[in-house]
């Protein structure tokens, strides 16, 4: 009866592996389905006006999302302006001066910060910025997104700075260079391409966030570049238009989603290519 038992074992093996293949097919199929729908439904909404015109009321043909494009750019720009210096400097601290008890604690807190649900980040930025200013603003949206970016950039910077070999540090020290110059001009420079990739990924990630912006950046039907005023963003615009009962607004939502997904995917793929080549130190 040995062969029967073996048959059974073989069958279990093959069944499980078939299911494993099937899972991979499901995973890939879902990605393709989402991309396909976004491209098909989105591409038809896109033309030049879409990028340079302001939104029109429903029923009025034409119009675009120029204000939301500019707004997303503004909010993400504000977030980057806050998060990049904080994240990179904190990364330098953790990797270059982190030989103490305080550093692991900061590292842990960065992980905590990273795991806060994005909607909670929105609530926090509301309390931090919107309440004192008594109005929704691009600044509040930027602060919300920066809270999400800081831990990502901190940990990426730390990892990449740590990957710079000690021989490079020693080579610079042996030239009679003070430590701070070694860190800034040699170590940071060596890790710069990697950090830039990490920053790009962080930007792509927060640029696609909606929840933290709902009651911080809020919304604006007009073009605004003022940091102290409510501002329209691509993601909030998609949400508002998708939730509306009007077909033409729904179409605009797909168009914006298409633009968003293209940006996010390009950023991710470029960074993947970068990460493959950059560690040839």
């Amino acid at each position, binding site marked *: 009866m040995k062969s029967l038992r073996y048959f059974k*074992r073989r069958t*279990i*093996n093959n069944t*499980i*592996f078939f299911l*494993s293949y099937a*899972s*991979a097919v499901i*995973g*890939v199929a*879902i*990605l393709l*389905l989402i991309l396909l*729908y*976004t491209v098909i439904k989105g591409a038809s909404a896109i033309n030049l006006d879409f990028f340079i015109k302001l939104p029109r009321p429903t029923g009025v043909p034409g119009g675009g999302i120029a204000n939301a494009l500019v707004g997303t750019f503004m909010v993400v720009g504000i977030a980057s302006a806050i998060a990049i210096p*904080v994240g990179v*400097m*904190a990364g*330098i*601290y*953790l990797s270059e*001066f982190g030989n103490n008890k*305080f*550093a692991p604690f*900061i590292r842990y*807190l*960065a*992980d905590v*910060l990273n*795991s*806060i*649900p994005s*909607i*909670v980040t929105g*609530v926090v930025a509301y309390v*931090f910025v919107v309440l004192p200013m008594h109005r*929704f603003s691009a600044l509040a949206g930027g602060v919300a997104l920066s*809270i999400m970016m*800081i*831990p990502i950039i901190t*940990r990426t910077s730390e990892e990449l700075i740590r990957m710079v070999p000690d021989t490079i540090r020693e080579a610079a020290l042996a030239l009679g260079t003070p*430590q*701070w110059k070694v860190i*800034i001009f040699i170590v940071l420079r060596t890790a710069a391409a990697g950090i830039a990739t990490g920053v790009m990924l962080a930007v*792509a990630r927060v640029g*696609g*966030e*909606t*929840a933290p912006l709902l009651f911080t950046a809020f919304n604006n039907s007009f073009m605004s570049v003022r940091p102290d005023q409510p501002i329209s963003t691509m*993601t909030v615009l*998609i*949400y508002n238009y*998708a939730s509306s009962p009007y077909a033409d607004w729904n179409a605009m939502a*797909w168009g914006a*989603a298409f633009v*968003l*997904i293209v940006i*996010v995917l390009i950023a*991710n*793929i470029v960074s993947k290519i970068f990460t493959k080549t950059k560690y040839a130190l």
Partner: protein
Amino acid sequence: MKRRISDRLLKLISISFASIILILIIGIVYELIDGSMLSINRFGWRFLVTSTWDPVKNVFGAMPFIFGTMVSSIIALIIALPISMGIAIFLSELAPQKIRPSVSLMIEMLAAIPSIIYGLWGLFVMAPFLQIHVEPLLGKYLWFLPLFKGAPLGIGMLAGGLILSIMIIPTIASITRDILNTVPTLYKEAGLALGMTRWEVMSKIVFPHARSGVIGAIILGFGRALGETMAITMVIGNAPMISASLFSPSYTLASVIANEFSEAVSQLYISSLIELALLLFIISMIFNALARLLVRREKVLQ
């Protein structure tokens, strides 16, 4: 060791920036608790078990949202778990070397798609599909289960759980793949040499070896589902009710904050919403801490 002033200055600057993270956490915890005080003082522990959410009468309870959050995430996990494990096994063991990187990349891309796009797709593509093709079938053949009672609306608990499952599959699958990859080939070959089938090697050697990490990955995925906002807000129906049926609309902690925060007028209303945020914060912290502990033991990922 003597240090130059400029070296100390860089250390000082970098430590100050690093401290911003500490200050931020303290600020967040303080503001969430402070903002919730009004609601905590008014409702106390009853807030957690009250199922009324009535802004007009100023009576607030978190029960329906806790229910909706937990149940939708559990559904997501039930669906995502086998598929993620299948993908992880595929990527670490079965996939031919040629297609492995591209399939890996595609699964990771799934994690990069913004939540709002999942929501859009869920609302306009998945929900109607459920309404027309899936839910009537479930209602027809599994009518005796309370899970599948009621009118097929498309949007509701089932759609919510499903969209969440899609969103956590890449998380669980990629981390599990990385953990499976850390199991030394030596052990696998030892198993094969004993005449085990490849599945027996997986189930008896590889998975036990990677157990805590895989559990960590699953918890991490669950934690992500709990805090997810936009996608589920767009498909779960947003009605604060507790129903056994997967067809009925529901509401999560994150969704109610997203929908009502900017419209809340009374102080107590805002305070109750902030308390929901505090709850979500605490729940996420617990699950993430647990997951990190387990995953880090495998030394794969922070």
